[in-house]
């Protein structure tokens, strides 16, 4: 199998890489580009730890081929803060102690950001269902949901 040359945009930067035809986007991000913030918890789309945005759509990067990124736009956890300024969701996760071990946190943040972009004022139930594809084994979700709803409120106020 010869490698495929891919040109794509990752976190607003034009990026080129070579990958095998059967290589997942997650493996490309982690092993070829050094973007290890996206995690592999299952490799089967069940845990959400590898969540990224692909052309504005929330996907499990373990279920996308690296070659599929050609000509498209990828956003990962590494692009979420602006320099030293954390995204309100990142800040609220810290303030609410919404992480214990932190392995699921990047996936939750990417998924929660996607939620708030579509639904700036979600109910608790909507947030719980939107995030049902992200597994967390440490927190019981309580503080995660509080952080997401609090971030939503702050972002609405900031307009």
């Amino acid at each position, binding site marked *: 199998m010869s490698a495929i040359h891919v040109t794509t945009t990752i976190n607003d930067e034009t990026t080129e890489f070579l990958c*095998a035809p059967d290589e997942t986007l997650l493996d490309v991000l*982690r*092993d070829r580009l050094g*973007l*290890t*913030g*996206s*995690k*592999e*918890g*299952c*490799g*089967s789309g*069940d*845990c959400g*730890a590898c969540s990224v945005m692909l052309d504005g759509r929330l996907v499990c990067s373990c279920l996308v081929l690296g070659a599929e990124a050609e000509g498209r736009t990828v956003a*990962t*956890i*590494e692009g*979420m*803060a602006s320099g030293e300024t*954390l995204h309100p969701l*990142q800040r609220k*996760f*810290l*303030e*609410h*102690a919404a*992480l*214990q*071990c*932190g*392995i*699921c*946190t*990047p996936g939750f*943040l990417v998924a929660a950001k996607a939620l708030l972009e579509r639904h700036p004022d979600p109910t608790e*139930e909507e*947030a*719980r*269902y939107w*995030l*049902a*594809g*992200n*597994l*967390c*084994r*440490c*927190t*019981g*979700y*309580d*503080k*995660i*949901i*509080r952080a997401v709803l609090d971030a939503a409120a702050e972002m609405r106020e900031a307009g």
Partner: protein
Amino acid sequence: MALDSKADTGKRHFKVVGTRPLRPDGVDKVTGRARFGADMSAPGMLVGLILRSPHPHARIRVIDTTRARALPGVHAVVTRADFATVDDAALADLLDNCMAGEKALYDGHAVAAVAAASGAVARQALDLIEVDYEPLPFVTDVDEAMKPDAPALHPGRANETVPPGLSANVMARHEFGHGDIEAGLAAADRVLERSYRTGATHQGYIEPHACLASVGPDGKADLWCCTQGHYMVRNTCAAILGMEQGSLRVTASEIGGGFGGKTTVFLEPVALMLSRKAGRPVKMVMSRSEVFRATGPTASTSIDVRIGMTKDGRITAGFAELRYQGGAYPGSPVDMGSMSAFAPYDLEHVKTIGWDVVTNRPKQAAYRAPGAPMAAFAVESAIDELARGFGLDPLEVRLKNAAREGTRASYGPTFPAIGLEATLRAAKDHPHWSAPLGPNQGRGVACGFWFNFGGDTCVSLNITPDGTVTLSEGNPDIGGSRASMSMMAAEELGIPYDKVRTIIADTGSLGQNDVTDGSRVTFAVGLATIEAARAAKREMCKRAAQVWGIEADAVIWENGAVRPAGPNAGKHPPMTLAEIAAIASNTGGPIAGHCEVNAEGAGVSFGTHIADIELDPETGTVRILRYTVFQDAGKAVHPDYVEGQFQGGAVQGIGWALNEEYIYGDDGRLQNAGFLDYRIPVASDLPMIDTVILEIPNPGHPYGVRGVGETPIVPPLAAVANAVSHAAGIRLTHLPISPPRLLAAIREK
């Protein structure tokens, strides 16, 4: 070793402890910067993969690795033949679990490993390894395994506690208790006899096991891995590989959950052996299916209980016989299940018998209060049934029988100050207990206990020249412990929290530190941190006294500065920590405090949970409506993370009660080795988990701290089952109460 008297805890006013600062590793973990097990790489790194047995039980006749070794890109192939024989029985079992010897003992058991230039080549190489198996009869169920004619895994290995004539799979018998059970039962108005079963669950940490091993030609090695205890990894791997412990430096990565499942080794000795053979660094990362098939789930159990109660709710005697299968090797946590089963109660007559049983399943590992949740499920279910049968309030019955200070525990010791009664009273007074319920809804309550642990601990607290503080500890931060350590150091030194940076040191930098287990870290590492800070303060007092030309005992430490102690010491303005640090070089050199201790005095922990559920009689689905945790924390250092332990433990217990279980097919293979089919609770399954922190100081810790991490998983199994039983009008005795199981029970009614 208690550093302080009990009196100190009562009057103390904390400035930092008890507040909720941001965790110091937080920014790294919300930006993707934190490096977990699989996030490390090295120049020249190879990919290591493991070949696993498809048979639940098979003799390994021959392993032919010729074709795999000949494949271009393959740098090493390892089988058991590469490892020397290990004498110690427990260590030999560990090695055998990491790489099968004469027999494969469960579906997923490692039989060979390869290191290759890429994952693709490594996968190809695994396909080229030829293993000649002789399949053997197998057994995966605990009660089946105890039958005298059951297929035997390790004939002749039973220890001396096992009476003759039993199945060869029974490895040990444990007995605890006091009094005369029959006499106690005779005094009861009703004796309830029930049998209970629980499925095997997995810790379900989201991060699969991963490591990066590099062995140099001089035999010196470095290992990076996600573990709950890198000193344990060092000691275990060194023994298995015949290395000196000093030659192997282990660095703990950030750890993506463990819950007990990362208190042993699986990949690490294999990665080191592959690296030694290949002469290159080797990285190994498990797939999720490997995590389920071949790491350490908990025991499945079968438990018989006999409890006698008077009609006014006094328990006259408690007896339980517990059978735990711990997978393919001895050492199920039935001993701790037997010790903890009746621990919440003050009983004159109590006895437990525990049977440790092996089956063709992966070797169990610790899972949060190992052994206790299943035992509590049985006992707390039976007490609930008796109380309701007499028309008594199940909370009142528990209060009437609760263990208190001075109670002789069912497992032997006499309790010092404990918090069970406080959690029960708080539960009784909480609005949750008296809130109305609707149709198909039920409420359950249950108590739980865990021993807690201290253990070997070594920390180093260094004062930098600019007056900031670095604290090195040797226990991976699994849920905010860096924050707690920084807080205790800041509290003791009288400096702001953000002036302390806590790091997790590698095994070359500190003395032995026991594994992050037994809810020990905030207690034991905290205790060592406080003592190290005190040692540094003593040194700083000495330095200031030296500058002032007075005796060291003529000064005191107060609010982060040294001051003269009384008018006789002369008039000197206070010297702050930063001022003393700045002149350290001229007053004798760097300033540091250390503590090396085998920490004793970890106070036992109790909790009470209330669960409200609603069941759907059409589908058998159970929904958690409301849930409240009451637990004694001794002293909550960082209340956010104490609440987080309560919430996370409760939800793991809810999963155990309702959904989670290892399902083996008739072929002896695990049927649900993935998160789709082994379903852990997700956000939409749950309500908020309310928490009430009680603080009954532990006399064994200078600030009164007790471990909090494990107890929260003990009550939920019974709390949920009692709630479902109440709503359904049937007693549910078999976990998980999955929809098909509940539906069948409702239809049988």
